[in-house]
Each structure stands twice: as structure tokens, then as C-alpha cells.
């Protein structure tokens, strides 16, 4: 799929809203690469369907490997906290049922700051670099 071209001198905040369909079928590393490439390009990445706990764990690990002084300080990630109603059973996981995935916002650590978060609302401040 062709990537949209952005003007070089555009002075704004770039946001990628990635559909569940676009991420579906990607491997864990492909998902992580999609996220980190976007964030390292100073974009705010919004995933319609978030990551599984294992993918989140690997995202943290790969992010740590890519942090570099004066260049990339890591990422800020926000998703709704898990509510009691979402608690999936061991049997459900063994049967291959994933936990309910939730919309997830990810951005460069130096550009996004969470102001408030609860089970139903994420309020964030996004600044230009």
C-alpha cells in the first residue's frame, strides 16, 4: 500500500491511525516495527486494536534497544486500564481467545504527555518537537 507523502516543512503533529485490519496478520516484530518506525518518525501512532501482553513486553524490549542519547528517548504509550469485566479465563486463553484489545496511543516520549487516564478516557498533551 502506498504511504502518504508529507510535506518536508510541515509544522504540525503527524498522526497515524492504524486499523485493526492493517495490523491483523502481521507478526509481532512486524507490528513492533510499524509502531517504532512511526514513533521514530515523530508520529503519534493510534492503534484501533492494541497489543497483546506478550507483544507489549517485546515492544518494551525492542524500544530499550533503540534508545540512543540525543536521538530517541523512548516512547509514551497509553491504553485504557483493564476493567474487571475484561478478565479472561485461562481456559479462554488456552482455546486461543485473546483478551479484548483496546485502542492504544503511542508517541515519542518527548512529545506526548498523559494528563489523565481512567477506564473510559485518555487525555493527553501532544506537543511539536
Amino acid at each position: 500500500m502506498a504511504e502518504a507523502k508529507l510535506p518536508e516543512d510541515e509544522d504540525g503533529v503527524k498522526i497515524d491511525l492504524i486499523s485493526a485490519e492493517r495490523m491483523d496478520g502481521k507478526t509481532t516484530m512486524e507490528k513492533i516495527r510499524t509502531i517504532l518506525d512511526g514513533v521514530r518518525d515523530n508520529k503519534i501512532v493510534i492503534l484501533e486494536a492494541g497489543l497483546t501482553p506478550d507483544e507489549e513486553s517485546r515492544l518494551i524490549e525492542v524500544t530499550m534497544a533503540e534508545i540512543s542519547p540525543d536521538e530517541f528517548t523512548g516512547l509514551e504509550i497509553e491504553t485504557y486500564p483493564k476493567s474487571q469485566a475484561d478478565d479472561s479465563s485461562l481456559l479462554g486463553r488456552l482455546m486461543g481467545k485473546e483478551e479484548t484489545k483496546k485502542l492504544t496511543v503511542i508517541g515519542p516520549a518527548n512529545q506526548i504527555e498523559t494528563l489523565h487516564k481512567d477506564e473510559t478516557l485518555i487525555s493527553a498533551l501532544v506537543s511539536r518537537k
Partner: protein
Amino acid sequence: MGLLTGLKDSISRAASTLFSEEDPKRIGIYGPPNAGKTTLANRIARDWTGDAVGPESHVPHETRRARRKENVEIERDGGTVTIDIVDTPGVTTKVDYTEFLEHDMEKDDAVRRSREATEGVAEAMHWLREDVDGVVYVLDSTEDPFTQVNTMLIGIIESQDLPVLILANKIDLEDSSVQRIRNAFPQHETTELSALEGDNMDEVYDQIAEYFG
């Protein structure tokens, strides 16, 4: 005959590995930076072995390598629970060396510390996925527990069906709120303590014995 004997021995060894009651469980001490993980690890190690695990500091990311203290025997109710405690680096999604400059550090030292910190976080995540049998999750009760790192880590721990005990640390401080932590993670037992002062450690040991014994 030799083949059969070898096969029998292999099965026997595998079964003893799977079902051994003797192997101490590896309990990972996890949490965000500066929650008091090493202070707790040292408190447990000193109480039951006489040794410390590692240096403590108010500067974030003092612990940059996972450290294991083996065969910590905790005596409870006439019995003994033996565990390995694994003190892990604080988990985060970002590390900025400039934050260390605020702690009177030269740039070279700050950059080195940040690089070691990132390696330590990755190491901690690896231990969590592969090498721990249970988790003690330590939170600073003066801080907001509703952070993404806490949400993600508890989710990762739950997804692996690891037993987890949440500890609300630093109750000796004025701004401490244990209830805030209980509200954030109502699905888990939360026990309050001050690892620094040694407050409520008896209950902590009771819980460790109950959860990981």
C-alpha cells in the same frame, strides 16, 4: 538394554525436574524505577541470610542488572519456605540521560547510566517472560499507580498466570495512600509495608509464604 536404561533415566530426570519439591521458586521483584525494589530485596536478604543484594539509591535506575539471591529460607509457622529472590531493574518505556544530569552527574556518566538502564529494562522483561515463577510487584504508595507501565506489567504477569503479590511500599511517608493502589488493582491482594523502616514485614513474609511456598 543400555538404550532402555538410558531412556528410563532420561524420563526419571525429566519427571524429577518437573515435579521436584526441592527447587526453590524464583520470585522476581518488579515495579517502576524508585519504588524501593532493592530496599525490599535487601531487607528480605538481610533478615534471612545476613547479606545484602545490591546498593540502594534515590537516583533512578541504580539497579541496572537483575541480581539473584539464592536459597533464601523464610521461616513461617514452624515450616520453611525457600525462594530465590531476583531483584530487577525498574521497568519503563523511556530513558532520557538528561534526567541523570539533575543528580549532579557528568554527561559521560549519565549517558553510560542510561545505556546500562535500557539494557537492564530489556533484561528484566526477558526474566519476566522466561525465568521467574512468581512476582512481587512493588509500588511507591506516594505515587499515582494508574500508569501505563504498571497496567502493562500487571497485564503481562497475568497473561502468564504467574502468582503476583502487590506491595504498597513507603507507608512511612506522609503522602502514602495504600487505598489508591488497592483501587487500581482490585483483582490482586495488596499488602502495605515500609521496606526502609521494616514496617509490617511479618505480614509480607506471611504473604510470600502463602503465595510462593
